[in-house]
Each structure stands twice: as structure tokens, then as C-alpha cells.
């Protein structure tokens, strides 16, 4: 084991400490590389795809994540019982918890991710800022975390408005609040503390200047244990709502070869500052004048990694596994070329016409789009229950084209082909975006979805056709029901006949 908590060695059996689409994604890479797999599951996930795809599966407790997927001892216990030699944390859950990585290496397990020290430094917003700043990486002006409310209010005047209240332990936009004028600050601090407390058990917040018109551009990195670090180009992730990414693409419309090289080199320097190993992502804010600022480093696999895979041809998860086995990177920087264009739409169980309210319930049908240039990563299937226990993402629909326009046309086609029933989804949001002039011309920033994009103007195209279909089905059902109650026409009892007919229909 390295001094900074990195253990790399060959392994043939790996435990996936996650669920859903990302667990399936990791299982696939393992099976391609001949690594045996161990899944864990909560009460809610016995029928889940990741359980069925894995070589072995172990129950780890009730549905709430804090009693199952977040319990380090339970994961380690399964590793012991199953004889797993390595652990892949996926994203979310325990992926960026340094104590989990530490517990893995202490138990002699390879943690498929960075050294414990790198997780610790990058997981602490203040330490991360100081560390990368010392390495010459530009950062956004702001305060340190841990100030009390009065000190925050005082600091806010110096930073200037607009600004962001952010959770020190945050991620995924939880515990983050924008503030445009001083009067709104106390309320925003209180809301952010409350949300951070609920999500992370830590209500510590800090302030950061808001860069207006900024775009969220991130650089994907791969690093091996010998200190070789390369960047796999950028991802454009500006289309967000409440700091939850909704659409990502690679490359970015606004990043040219020169800017890509500069951002890539700065990202590599930031990673080198913590002796980073494995896959990681540096998030930057890019302003209108093409200045970029370090936001944070995600010391794990990202949800949106597939768009990079499609344009670089590199299987990032396979590379993670190779690196964790102690192998040297197979690529050098000059081997990495971006070719074509990839777009990812996150399909969420939420109602785009009703303030994006989450929608729960059983998926009664899931038929995925296929065909040229289409990839779907999902853990959802017919019969799957969307519950409030886990995040509402149903799938990631990723389309590839030679050009951005071709990728967009493919995405439109694929969105139309997707059949998912039982919950409301944000597919109409994506369709509307794929038709928006601002999106088509690449003119958007991180505020676009919230401030200048509305579903109100969308006129669904087939209202009459939908009415006809519903009437035809209602009519048919009414006729069948009336046949059932018509007496004396069949010799078997009507109830028997009805239940047979019901079974036939399924």
C-alpha cells in the first residue's frame, strides 16, 4: 500500500458497492475483462438488473440507503464472505467517502478509485481550493466554510452579489442556493444548511461569487499509479436545473483545440497536486471571455462518462479496472483524439409540465430506443418500482453522430422511439430542448434551463390522435365488458371466462 492510501494489485473478483444503471455499467466492464462480480442489494432491489447480471449477490438490508448501500461494515462484510478482492464504488453513495476507501484498503481490498488522501483533500472544498491554487490553478473568489451566519453576511458584501451559498460537504447541487440581493441571504443560508444537514448530516456552508453567463465545462482525466496523467477532452454540462445536470455533450460547442489543451493541462496540474490515480473529473466554470475557474474535482466515475467514451473510443470503466490492477496507462496524450459528437439526455421520473415534480410508481413498460448511434444505460425494466428511496434517474440516453447536428437528429429520433410507461418522465423536456434554437445554436449557460427555457410554449403535436386512441381503447374495453355480463351466452360461468380473458390479455 502507498503512503497516501493507494492499493493497486491484480484481482479477479470485484464487489460493486452500488445499484442501478451504474452498477450494471460496471458489471459489464468486469465481465468483458473476465472479472467475477459481486452485487449487493437492499430489500427494494432483489429483482434489480444489477443483481441479475452479477455472478453473486448479497442482501445488505432495508430499502433506505443509510441502512444498506451507505453502511460501510455491511459492504466489507459481503466482501469478506464472497472473497472479493476489489471494490468499485460507482458514483454517489460511498464513492467519495474517504473513510470508505480507507476501510477497503485496510481490509486488503483494492479500491477502484483514487488514493484515500486525494479523496480527502478534494472532498474538502477549502483544502481543495488551497491545494489547486498552490499548483497555479485559477479558482472562483469566495469564503472558507465554517463561518457563522454573521460572518457569512459580512463576507458577502466583500465578495459582491450575485453569489452562491454552497454546502461544504455538498455535491449534485444539494444544499446550494443562489442569492441575488443581501435581503435574501439569511433565508438562503438557512435553507442551504437545512438541505445540507438532511442530505449529508453536515450543515456547514460557504459563499462563492456567481459567474454570470458561465458554462459548466469539465475535463475527464485518467491517471495511473506511475504518475502518468492524461485528459480525455471536455464535457459540456451547462444544461442543469437546480444544479442537477440534465444534458451533457462532448465536445463543447465553445471549446476549441487551443482552449481544450489549456484546460486539459490545468486539469492535469490540479490532479497532480494530489498525486491523483484512476479516473477523475475537474469541473470548471468558463466565463464569457473564456476565463476558466476550478470548481471542484469529482474523485470518481461520473454519471456522464459515456459521452466521453463515445467521442474518444476509450472505455473509461475498463481503464479504471486496469489502473486499479496496477497497469500502466495504455494511452499517451497524443493518442487521444475526439471524433464526432455525443449527447446524453438524463431520463428522469419527473413531470416537466408540473414544475418537474418527481413521479413515483411502477414502470409498466420499458422499451428502449435502439439503432445507429444510440446507447442506453439503465437499471430500469418493466415491473421496476420508482421509489423515493433512490434517485429518480430512469436511464441515460446517449446519441452519437459525426457532427453535432447528426447527434441531435438521432436524439430526437431516439426520444420519440422510447416507450416508458407507469411514471411521468422528462422526455418531453428533452424533445423541447432538442428543438430549441438556443440549444441548436449552442447559445446557453448554466442558468438557461431555469431562466430562459419554458415548457409552457410547447404544444404537444398529437392531441387529437391521443384522444382517438383513448376513445378506441375505452370503446373496446366497454364492448368486452358488456360481453362478459351478457347472460346465458356461454356455458362456462362469466367470471371464469372473464378471468381467462384477463389472463389472455397480459
Amino acid at each position, binding site marked *: 500500500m502507498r503512503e497516501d492510501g493507494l492499493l493497486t494489485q491484480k484481482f479477479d473478483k470485484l464487489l460493486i458497492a452500488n445499484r442501478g444503471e451504474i452498477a450494471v455499467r460496471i458489471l459489464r466492464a468486469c465481465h468483458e475483462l473476465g472479472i467475477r462480480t459481486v452485487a449487493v442489494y437492499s430489500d427494494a432491489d432483489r429483482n434489480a438488473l444489477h443483481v441479475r447480471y452479477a455472478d453473486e449477490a448479497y442482501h445488505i438490508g432495508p430499502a433506505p440507503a443509510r441502512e444498506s448501500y451507505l453502511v460501510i461494515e455491511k459492504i466489507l462484510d459481503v466482501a469478506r464472505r464472497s472473497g472479493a478482492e476489489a471494490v468499485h464504488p460507482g458514483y454517489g453513495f460511498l464513492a467519495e467517502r474517504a473513510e470508505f476507501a480507507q476501510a477497503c484498503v485496510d481490509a486488503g481490498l483494492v479500491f477502484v478509485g483514487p488514493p484515500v488522501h486525494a479523496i480527502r483533500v478534494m472532498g474538502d472544498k477549502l483544502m481543495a481550493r488551497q491545494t489547486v491554487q498552490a499548483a497555479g490553478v485559477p479558482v472562483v473568489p469566495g469564503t472558507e466554510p465554517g463561518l457563522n451566519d454573521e460572518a457569512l453576511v459580512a463576507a458577502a458584501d466583500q465578495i459582491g452579489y450575485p453569489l452562491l451559498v454552497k454546502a461544504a460537504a455538498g455535491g449534485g447541487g444539494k444544499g446550494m442556493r443562489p442569492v441575488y440581493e443581501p435581503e435574501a441571504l439569511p433565508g438562503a443560508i438557512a435553507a442551504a444548511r437545512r438541505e445540507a444537514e438532511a442530505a449529508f448530516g453536515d450543515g456547514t456552508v460557504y459563499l462563492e461569487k456567481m459567474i454570470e453567463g458561465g458554462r459548466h465545462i469539465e475535463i475527464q482525466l485518467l491517471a495511473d499509479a506511475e504518475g502518468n496523467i492524461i485528459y480525455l477532452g471536455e464535457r459540456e454540462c451547462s444544461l442543469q436545473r437546480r444544479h442537477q445536470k440534465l444534458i451533457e455533450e462532448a465536445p463543447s460547442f465553445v471549446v476549441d483545440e487551443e482552449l481544450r489543451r489549456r484546460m486539459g493541462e490545468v486539469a492535469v496540474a490540479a490532479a497532480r497536486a494530489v498525486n491523483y490515480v484512476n479516473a477523475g473529473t475537474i469541473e470548471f466554470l468558463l466565463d464569457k471571455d473564456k476565463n476558466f475557474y476550478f470548481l471542484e474535482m469529482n474523485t470518481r466515475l461520473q454519471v456522464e462518462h459515456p459521452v466521453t467514451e463515445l467521442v474518444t473510443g476509450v472505455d473509461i470503466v475498463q481503464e479504471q479496472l486496469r489502473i486499479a490492477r496496477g497497469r500502466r496507462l495504455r494511452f499517451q496524450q497524443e493518442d487521444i483524439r475526439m471524433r464526432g459528437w455525443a449527447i446524453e439526455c438524463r431520463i428522469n421520473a419527473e413531470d416537466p409540465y408540473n414544475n418537474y*415534480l418527481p413521479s413515483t410508481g411502477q414502470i*409498466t413498460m420499458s422499451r428502449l430506443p435502439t439503432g445507429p448511434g444510440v446507447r442506453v444505460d439503465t437499471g430500469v425494466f418493466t415491473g421496476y418500482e420508482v421509489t423515493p428511496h433512490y434517485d429518480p434517474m430512469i436511464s441515460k440516453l446517449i446519441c452519437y453522430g459525426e457532427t453535432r447536428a447528426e447527434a441531435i437528429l438521432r436524439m430526437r429520433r431516439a426520444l420519440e422511439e422510447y416507450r416508458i410507461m407507469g411514471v411521468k418522465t422528462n422526455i418531453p423536456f428533452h424533445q423541447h430542448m432538442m428543438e430549441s434554437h438556443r440549444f441548436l445554436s449552442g447559445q446557453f449557460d448554466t442558468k438557461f434551463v431555469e431562466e430562459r427555457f419554458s415548457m409552457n410554449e410547447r404544444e404537444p403535436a398529437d392531441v387529437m390522435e*391521443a*384522444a*382517438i386512441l383513448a376513445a378506441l*381503447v375505452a370503446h373496446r374495453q366497454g364492448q368486452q365488458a358488456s360481453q362478459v355480463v351478457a347472460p346465458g351466452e356461454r356455458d362456462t360461468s362469466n367470471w371464469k371466462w372473464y378471468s381467462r380473458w384477463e389472463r389472455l390479455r397480459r
Partner: protein
Amino acid sequence: MKYMAMVGDKEFTIEINHEYEILVNGERYEVDFRQLPEGSVYSLLLNHRSLEAVVEERDDLWQVLLRGELYEVQVQDERAYRLARARGTAVSVTGEAVIKSPMPGIIIKVPVAAGDVVKKGDTVVILESMKMENELKAPRDGVVKRVQTQQGASVEKNQVLVIIGDPHEEG
């Protein structure tokens, strides 16, 4: 058979007399309509225009998934429609608007009280679910008639939280 089909604020009169043709608002359409073995998937040729849809009944509404869009359609046969009209229970924009919890969660805040005047789009309940705070908005202008929940309460899916009445109603 004559049916009234309502989608949002649009209403269609659909007359189905034969397997092969229908009248929509009096206009004739040739139809070939099949249910596929794959659950609730239907194939419709409407004047030879090919449409594939998933159609399921839920809470007295027909959900129709068509080219990515999910439509909610209320279908009533002519008799039921007339009866509903007579009783005044047909779909209408007046009367009470009931804010229900769209999912299980915890009430973070109820920024309104009984008697408050609200505008369409005003936040009436903040619900935490899936670790996110969700703002439930008033669907139209009105007066809060009743608040049936409180801060800190755990609520089930479809639980009634707030009832909004017409602006002119008293109390």
C-alpha cells in the same frame, strides 16, 4: 357509440360505429386499430398514418404515450357526459383545487394559511422527498380554504395537503 374525449382544455367528439371508420368532430377517418401482444401497446392506422401508442387506464384517466409525449385523456360516453354535465361534475376550471402530495415525503414548510389569497404559481407547500425540496404551486388563482398538513409532518403519496377555493367564495 359516441364518446367525448378531453385532453387538457381540448374536447373531441368521437363516434365509433364500425371497426374500420370513425367520426372525429364530424369528420370521417379510416381506422385500423390493433392491440399488440406486448401489454398495452396499440397500433393505429388513421387514414393510413401509422401511430404506435401505449395506452393505460389510471385514476379514471387514460394515459396515452405517443411519440415521447404522455397525454392524459378523459373519455366519457355520451350518456355519462350528459349526466356529469347535469350534476356539474364535468371537468371545469372553477371549484376547488386540491393540492395533493405527489410522492411520500416530509413537509418542510407551508407558507400559506387558510384565508390567504394566492395567485397561480405561488408556492403553497414545500415538500422534501428524494432528498430534494420540492415546491408545490397553486394551479390557479384563489383563496386557501383549508390547510390539511403542517411543518414536519410525514405525508403519503396522494395525501391532500391544501385546498384552494374560488376567490369570490366566503370563508
